[in-house]
């Protein structure tokens, strides 16, 4: 009974918070800064408390897994298809949900003072609570569809928070870029969910991963099935966690207010991809090839992040790449099968990086203190008094790092642009086909017209 109540509170409290924040805005009421801050604090601490009690009860009763079913919404027995809304509390999700709630709570308290008198105060809090609901949902999701719902909420609120300062061009452009990459990842996620449903009839994570509790493995999937689903999920995770080749968006996402950068890109959002892989960890064991691919992606990203991070001159980008570096190591750990290590790594890294990001504006003071402590000043170029002309390799490496490997150019010019061109071509084809069917005689002439039109658009 305690488990049921607590589990319910964990999910209901953020939902209520979203409603209480969003509805007055929708109806045109003005909620004061103070009450918004208090409300957030109250409900977030309630949810955190509930999650902690749940953890303690389960530890005391030696229960390692608890599922909370909230209705079977679709059930098609003939087609062997059902959709249930189910929450799964186990050794993976409870720590992660506590981490999410705690960091959200701290950052909510921070933001309530940091954004004082800002015109977008209420908007920020709305997006922030939607984000939190998404985080909680995707952490405790028991079915892949539930997880997708949370995953979408996180994606939507993140993209809007990147574009928080909507009257400048850069935040909006970068928000759009984040959104595009998220959509791409979402597509892969959705495909994976479909394939899973096709293979197992349902989307239950516990069934799919075998009936034994996480992290022990007994996945009922075949090797090739695991590979297909796993690859799709890897693409989803790579998009969300900014692994190569999607890394370009991470530093660009530092457009929002400092607390949102801290929570999303330092702490929670960027780990969500890794969490997904961790969640389906048992499945990865089924396919060694999949494991190699995951480790490979992790390694490439790690090298990339280490190289690029070294040349960043602004504090937020430097922290973004430092985050990416740790996330890629976490991915390697997951690929290797060290799931507890990965979990501890996520928790530790999220806490440390959020603090660092929140303190990012202190950089100048910290730097001065550091110099004072050392009793000397240090700056670029001081180390070598003799000027040595830089080697070709150093120049190449620096240029590669400064241009961030041109990953965005690759995506833009090699993937996005051909993609758009292809669909334009399809569109043209369709037009001429329709015209042909509707009995237009001068098909060729119109084809030319359409070509001009699509060029112009």
């Amino acid at each position, binding site marked *: 009974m305690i488990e049921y109540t607590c589990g319910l509170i964990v999910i209901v409290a953020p939902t209520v918070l979203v409603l209480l924040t969003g509805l007055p805005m929708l109806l045109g009421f003005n909620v004061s800064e103070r009450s918004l801050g208090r409300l957030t604090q109250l409900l977030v601490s309630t949810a955190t408390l509930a999650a902690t009690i749940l953890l303690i009860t389960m530890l005391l009763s030696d229960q390692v897994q608890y599922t909370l079913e909230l209705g079977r919404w679709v059930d098609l027995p003939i087609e062997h298809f059902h959709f249930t809304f189910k929450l799964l509390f186990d050794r993976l999700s409870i720590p992660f949900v506590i981490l999410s709630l705690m960091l959200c709570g701290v950052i909510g308290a921070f933001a309530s003072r940091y954004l004082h008198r800002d015109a977008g105060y209420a908007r920020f809090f709305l997006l922030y609570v939607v984000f939190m609901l998404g985080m909680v949902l995707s952490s405790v999701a028991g079915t892949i569809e539930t997880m997708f719902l949370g995953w979408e909420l996180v994606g939507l609120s993140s993209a809007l928070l990147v574009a928080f300062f909507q009257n400048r061009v850069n935040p909006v452009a970068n928000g759009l870029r984040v959104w595009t990459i998220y959509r791409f990842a979402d597509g892969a996620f959705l495909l994976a969910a479909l394939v899973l449903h096709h293979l197992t009839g349902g989307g239950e994570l516990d069934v799919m991963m075998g009936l034994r509790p996480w992290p022990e493995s007994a996945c009922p999937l075949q090797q090739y099935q695991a590979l297909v689903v796993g690859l799709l999920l890897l693409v989803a995770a790579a998009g969300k966690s900014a692994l190569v080749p999607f890394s370009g968006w991470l530093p660009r996402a530092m457009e929002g207010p400092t607390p949102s950068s801290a929570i999303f890109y330092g702490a929670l959002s960027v780990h969500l991809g890794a969490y997904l892989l961790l969640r389906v960890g048992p499945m990865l064991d089924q396919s060694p090839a999949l494991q190699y691919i995951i480790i490979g992606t992790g390694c490439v990203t790690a090298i990339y992040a280490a190289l690029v991070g070294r040349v960043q*001159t*602004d504090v937020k980008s430097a922290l973004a790449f430092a985050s990416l570096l740790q996330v890629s190591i976490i991915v390697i750990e997951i690929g290797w099968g060290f799931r507890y290590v990965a979990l501890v790594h996520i928790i530790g890294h999220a*806490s*440390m990086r959020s603090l660092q990001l929140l303190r990012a504006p202190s*950089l100048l003071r910290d*730097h001065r203190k550091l110099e*004072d402590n050392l009793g000397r000043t240090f700056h*670029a170029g001081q180390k070598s008094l003799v000027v040595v002309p830089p080697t070709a390799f150093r120049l190449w490496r620096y240029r590669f790092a400064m241009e961030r490997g041109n990953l965005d150019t690759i995506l833009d010019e090699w993937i996005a642009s051909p993609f758009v061109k292809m669909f334009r071509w399809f569109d043209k084809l369709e037009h001429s086909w329709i015209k042909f069917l509707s009995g237009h005689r001068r098909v060729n002439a119109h084809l030319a017209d359409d070509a001009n039109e699509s060029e112009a658009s």
Partner: protein
Amino acid sequence: MRLSLEEISKAVTDAAALLPRQGPITKFAFLNPLQGLEHEHYDEVMKYVGTVYGNEAYLDDRRYREKLWRGRIVESDLREVLSEELGPLSSDVVAGLTPRLELRLATLLHPLHFGERRELDWVLAETESLKHFRPEVSETQKNSLLEEHLRWTIESKHAAALATIAEQHGCTLERINELLTKHELEQLVASRSRETFYLSTLWRIIRNGIDIAENCPKRVPTENQVSKFAELSVSDFLSMTSDSRVDALMIQFTSAFLDQGYASSSLPGVEQGYWNCFRLLYSRPALLAPKWRRSLRKDLKVIEQAGLTPLESIQVSLEELQVRPPESAAFISATLLSLRGYAGMIWQTESRADLFRKSSPPGTLLEFLAVRLLLLTLARKRKDWTLNSPAKNSAAVCSQGNRRTIDSEQLAFILFELAQVLQWSPKAMSALSATQWQELTHELHEFDDHQRRRAFHAAFERQLAKMALRSFWIRTQELPVRPKTPTLQVVCCIDAREESLRRHLEEIDASVETYGIAGFFGVAMYYRGAGDADFSALCPIIMKPRHWVTEEAVYSLEQADRTRAKARRFLGSAQRGFQAQSRGLLGGAIMSTLVGPLATIPMLSRIMLPRTTAMMNQTARQFIAPPTITRLHLERTSEATAAPPTVNEDGTVDDCGVGFTLEEMTQMAERALRDIGLTSNFAPIVLLLGHCSSCINNPHESAYHCGACAGNAGGPNARALAMMLNDVRVRRKLDGMGLTIPEETQFIGGQHNTATEEMMFFDLELLPTRKIKQVRAASQLLAEAARRNAHERCRRFESADLRISNKDALLHVQNRSEDLAQTRPEYGNGSNAICFVGRRQRIRGLFLDRRSFLMSYDATQDSPESHILARILSAVVPVCEGINLLYSFSAIDPSGWGSGTKLPHNITSLVGVMDGAASDLRTGLPWQGVDIHEPVRLLFIIEATTQDLLKLMEENQTLKNIFRNHWSHLATLDPKTNQMYRFSKDKFVLYEPETNEPRLRGLPRAAKSRDWYQGRREHLTFAFIADSPNADAIDPKTSSSNTNAPARVPT
């Protein structure tokens, strides 16, 4: 035809003067953002800032109108402003309808629709503006207008009126024309709304009139003398020279070039200069470069083969971009201004190398421009980038400002609204001739958006100036108040933040005297504190010190000092290792796994319990901080030349160049005392109070420190001056100069923390025992004043309750400065508006609401040639003007002149902040620092004769520029006759107060400051604070004449 190389380099130097003058953000410079243009008149410059900078010159119409409603701008001031500037033209009747002055006034007083075309379309389609009168027209006026209109319609049968009737009734004009009898027409009109009939007719007549006016030949605008600055305002160069892809590349490369040591690996070849380094990096083959700059490598090769210098490359690029020589200066300045933050910083690294760890050689700005233009030519080769045809540009050169152009429909609608407000009847309007219509439209074009806002701004400034002058005039008609035997004298910085502290001190104890002096106390020095790694310049940013001073632990504690320094070094290396490792590969992994979860502890405590955490940190820090008992190394022998300490090869430190000679110290001591007029009647304790501020997690921390110490804490200067004045040798020499300091007088250096209101005193261990009692009393007095000051400051913070107690107020301000999430640790000089230079006793007791810089100066002690005034003003005027204009411009356009909101700020290269992931460097003050600021130019009130000031303006070019070109307003208070004069249009005009109350009764009065400000957050009128029993106590709530009582109800 190409531009010669000399012309190009001259254009670059000229353009550099337009760039923001912001050095590294840790040494925040309070300077006029338009300092390079001070040689031109303020009004002239404001006309063109829109097109040259793309920034606003004044607030938005709407903001001024809001001030009008709240009574911060009054109609009579608007009228005065307009009549002064129109002169004899003001009574001309425009188009035979209304005097010009009334017409202009009406456009200011009434919220007409000056908005965009689309807005107008909406107004016409969706609102009842063509059906009902504007709310300004009263019911009786309405009726008489309608009556008259009906009569006129019937009598004249004017075509427009008939057409309106036809439209209203959906019949043809012929049909209406047939209804010739009076009665029939009357009935027809009465059957529909007469109001609609009236307005529709009016609208029809005006639209026709505008058409007539437009068909007439245009008037040729008279050729004004175009200033040099105006020539730079080519309206679309700014947008043409910015390209997001070029900007992105320039930002990346320039931050790497400027980096003062943040990135783990530095830019290779940075020591070869900007241009060479760029060529080195980008002439290497690179895979996958974006399409637009794939040919960059080839171009760089060509440049290398041709051996082009940066200057020659600029020449070639300008030619390729088809920039014609007459416009090239404008093009060059636009190219630099389109990335002004970085360009300005590059310029600072070469022109103020002493402010940077890593500076650049001369000519770097030129190289920056060369690279930018080269990239622009590449971007231009793509079809989406076009330079407009040169012919159009040269036409645009003469266009004025960033005025919104309005089309005929908008013009008609404004006239339509004016016609209602001013009650121009359709009858009168229909009688206008073509020239009169033209006169009307010309008038509206003339008094455009820019002019209206300018008039509003002038009236706003006038209102404040009037209030200030009136208060000063009334107060100074009384005799000066000065304690006969002062028990304590406190010398503070001129800062507006110290005004309240000084007032509270005087309020608590009537025997206290206070003085104001520029916060570096006349001691310009490079200073290194006991635990500091490096020297900082403690003097106004416009000066360069020539002396070095260090703080050292006392001899008996040297051993402890060394041990602690060692401990600090150990901690420092550990910190440095941690910082580097946490961002690295293995270290980061290990650390985040093992130590990471522990980070929640400081994070939680920092955010949830800021003050406790800060106290714990401080306690912990005490174990390794330098010993608390230190001395300044202040003196050097007269033989040694001033030099920084150097470390010899054997490890010993050679510091014989550190400090001042006895002669220099005497000079500084004498000068400081004579400047403020403290030459006799010394109190037993004279406190010299520098100031600092503390806050955390704030890149703009330096902006809260002392502006006269270049954004550093000013305590060391106060301490140094106190040490000099306590030196018996100095006193003996001063005695010889006729400046006798009694033996009993003790000078004490101190530091006031303007954020936390903590007071710190230096060298107390040197205090003679007999003095301790007096000092203890003084320090208690200061503590009480600090509490009251904290309370007064709290009324400005929305997060502090208005009913807060003194004690809680102190806690509140202390919490603010320790709060990681606090973006407004204090409001700095955010409320500055005036600057008084004169004797404190003349205005003692005036509540100036922290709005005034206060500099002490005693004209009666000055030489006939007013040497003292000359040297005071040469520092005080540019410093205060710089602070004021930086605040004002940042408040007028927070994202243009200021650095926008703090929330997304991102520190880069350790020199500045960007917005978010990548943007231009943001200079100026953040929005959170200026959100309570009322943008007005500073009003100097100087206690001196007008002749003196006129003479000084002739001698000192800076003063001349600032006052004659009206970058600040000026008024004088005659030390003998008590008359006040305003400086206007190059001459002094006697100030005549608009009050019949010669006595203090003309001023609102309260017993205590607190009674006056309690419960109110907005700016207050100046009041007289006096605890005298027979004074007429005035209730602050009812007597406030113009602050919170709405004078006009918003419509």
